[in-house]
């Protein structure tokens, strides 16, 4: 199954266009109340009318997302390594992480505000706590799935654990880590948004709240659409990075092979 990137893009764009059209028609024909669910044309007009406003807030949310993602990535990989090497960490920190991940961050809003204020810190913290989980779980799987004989090969050469980690476990965990990253980048965005709901005066989350207070549904949906676009773009950036970095992996070899 030869897959052409360009045809993929055309398909994706076509599908998107079809969805938007369907939505527009549905809103107009079925008389869905704009007040709850505005037509795409309304939303697009809203964005075109206030490009600066949306750009500014989207950039802020993007910044929080990226910083949160970067922290989640580094911290998550470090944690995963710790968990794979230490039964103690697995029994303690891992379980704690699992428990923390089950707690809705919004319920802890007061604590976040009190401990971290209302600037960027609480938002980044929430983005990190939401994004880190997938990274840890997937990286742990990846680090553990190394072929035992390959480990033997390295051990026979008296590679120390650090070398084994860097040169064997880590590269072979990369496909798994990337799967974790794809989930995490998406959740980092959600986390940034939840963070903006919890506190702060910038970003798309704040814009949504303000607009909700004013019953400005077009603006709410414009923000939501921008969020969806941002999430998609971030996801496919990670995907592209994966294709670029892991040409050797079975899931990408097809692209380089005749069949």
């Amino acid at each position, binding site marked *: 199954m030869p897959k052409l990137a360009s045809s993929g893009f055309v398909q994706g764009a076509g599908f998107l266009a079809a969805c938007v059209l369907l939505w527009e028609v549905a809103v107009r024909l079925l008389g869905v*109340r*704009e*007040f*709850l669910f505005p037509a795409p044309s309304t939303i697009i007009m809203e964005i075109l009318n206030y490009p600066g406003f949306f750009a500014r807030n989207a950039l802020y949310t993007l910044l929080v997302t990226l910083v949160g993602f970067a922290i989640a990535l580094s911290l998550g990989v470090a944690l995963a390594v710790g968990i794979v090497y230490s039964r103690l960490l697995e029994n303690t920190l891992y379980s704690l992480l699992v428990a923390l991940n089950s707690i809705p961050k*919004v*319920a802890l*809003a*007061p604590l*976040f*505000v*009190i401990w971290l204020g*209302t600037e960027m810190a609480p938002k980044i913290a929430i983005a990190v706590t939401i994004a880190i989980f997938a990274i840890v779980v997937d990286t742990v799987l990846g680090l553990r799935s190394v072929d035992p004989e390959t480990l033997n090969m390295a051990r026979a050469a008296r590679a120390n654990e650090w070398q084994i980690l860097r040169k064997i476990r880590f590269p072979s965990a990369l496909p798994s880590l990337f799967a974790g990253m794809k989930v995490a980048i998406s959740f980092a965005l959600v986390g940034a948004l939840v963070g903006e*709901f*919890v*506190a*702060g*005066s910038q970003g798309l989350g*704040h814009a949504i*709240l*303000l607009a*909700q*207070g*004013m*019953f*400005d*549904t077009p603006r709410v949906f414009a923000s939501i659409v921008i969020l969806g676009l941002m999430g998609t773009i971030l996801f496919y950036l990670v995907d592209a990075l994966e294709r670029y970095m892991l040409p050797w992996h079975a899931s990408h070899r097809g692209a380089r092979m005749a069949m």
Partner: protein
Amino acid sequence: DDDLSVLLDFAPWGLHAGVHLAAEKGWFKEQGLNVNVRDGRGSVSTIQLVGVGEADVGMAQLGPMATAREKSGIPLKSIAGWVRKGDLAAVVDKTAGISTIADLKGKKLALFAASPFLPFLDTFLKAGGLTRDDVNLLYVEPSAMMTTYTSGQADGVLTAGPYGQALAERDRPASLVLAEQAGISYPSYGYFSTESVIEGKEDILRRFLATQTRAFQYIYDGHVDEAVAAIISQRADLKLNPEILKSQIELYRPFFTTPNTEGKPFGWQSEDDWASTIKSMVEAGVLGDGFKPQDFYTNAFIGE
């Protein structure tokens, strides 16, 4: 029995006493009504849901309802105004010696980004000779608002005054700097419906509101404890705090009448109040031009 669905503004609190007491006392039955009361998730959501017909009657702040009427094009109309005096206020420490807007200079004030207070903020501050730069605004989630205040992170909270005051009482007693000081007239909690419901269920609404006027009259005639008990009994098992409920009801007492509604039954709204509300709202930019008071309320269901 005639069915009527009522969507409240939020999880149970003091002003829900009206419906719960009526239910408890069997007044709905007396009127041949079968009233289904549901809790809501904030005024905004309640207004939207009533607007699209998810419930017949909503309870919410009437100011935002007016905004929603313009934005949605759905003819929402208030059918009873309970908290007729504006309750927007800065909730501040009782002992901090803050009594005027000007005293807020340099203070840290928490508020919710979707709060109806926000559009009035400039007008409010201006009345004390302040601008936004003179205060430190902390936008936080509603659940974190009072905690930021009680924990000392903020010096005050911009919210529905008595509501916040009641919550703060135990940990950091508060007093109010009312937005009214700045000439802002913004009606608070009341019942509303769409015009189509108002026409279609006119008789049912009349009977329903009769129970409500009676309920609030009864409550403020010295039966606050009974009202609290009714809320708790209707929402059994939620471990509601009777003290907070009680102080919410009591703190709202003075807000049930304005000079213009003096002597009128509970729920009755004055044209003059709405006229100045419209003025305030237009100034704040939350309402366009060309609205008349009658667009937003009707006293048709409240006996004189």
